[in-house]
């Protein structure tokens, strides 16, 4: 009886369990990469690609100029706060609407 209940619970929450395993495995992989790779900087892959473009063309990175002038965040702090703003916009949308749906369901 108890056994049956546990199996049923495990089946019901398969996706949650898989998500936790995936996140933990992802963190473990990160820690492994961090400790095993000497000098892993974890810079953006976008920048790595830009560097490769520079290598392929034989021009140094400083010689690439924006085609259309653009504003750049003056520091990493400001950049990260703007990224957080982007995530917050998404979070408000998702949280707000899920809350609205839960409210609707309770009312019905």
């Amino acid at each position, binding site marked *: 009886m108890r056994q049956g209940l546990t199996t049923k619970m495990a*089946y*019901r929450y*398969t*996706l*949650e369990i*898989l*998500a936790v395993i*995936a*996140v933990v495995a*992802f963190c473990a*992989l*990160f820690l492994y*990469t*961090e400790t095993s*790779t000497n*000098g*892993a*900087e*974890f*810079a*953006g*892959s*976008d*920048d*790595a*690609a*830009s560097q*490769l*473009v520079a290598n*392929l*063309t034989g021009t140094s990175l400083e010689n*690439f*100029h*924006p*085609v*259309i002038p*653009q*504003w*750049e*965040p003056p520091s990493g702090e400001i*950049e990260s706060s*703007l*990224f*957080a703003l*982007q*995530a917050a*916009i*998404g*979070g*408000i*949308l*998702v949280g*707000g*609407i*899920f809350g*609205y*749906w*839960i409210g609707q*369901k309770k009312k019905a």
Partner: protein
Amino acid sequence: MHIMEGFLPLQWCIVWWIIALPCLMFGIYQLKKLVDLDREALPLLGVTGGFIFILSSLKLPSVTGSCSHPTGTGLSTISFGPWITSVICMIVLLFQSLFLAHGGLSVLGANIVSMGIVGPLVGYGIYRLLRDTPVNIYITVFLVSALADMFTYVTTSLELALAYPAETGGVVSSFILFMGIFALTQVPLAIVEGIILALVFKYIVALKPDILIRLKIFSEKQINAARTDN
């Protein structure tokens, strides 16, 4: 997946803009029709679009020792198709071009093609292929999300390779080089993204099965099976 401003020759910027523009215009037309006809679907649009905002802001470390971000386009692709998804991607990518110097206005066309058009199109193809089969709907969502993410980065690699063929080996060998940077980094991220979005879809199924059935995203039978099974 951003090509940085200034890192794509002008002629290629124009090519990708020319490909992106009709897709965006069709997306805006579809979006307008959706807003006019079906206001009940708007919250679903908000949730699926919200996940694009959240996931594309998270830059995560990966096996290659560099960081990259998921795209989050899977849910919106399944719910509203690739064209509306490309409009949402345009908004996110425009935000990142203007305020974060990630990508830029001249390369926006190329970045929309990779994240907003080719990725979602591949995902949508898989969805259409699996929708009418007995495959579990969460596996469908997983595959659509993970592969839309992967193919976004494959496309970015191709865009860069076409613009910068290697001296020996041409486009193919520089494509392999760019894939080494983008695709390899992306594999673990795409898998995690697929599982997370499948989990989110489970909650949408639990809260709003009627919308999913009415928009014919999955059949009533599939949705009900997913509800009692999970």
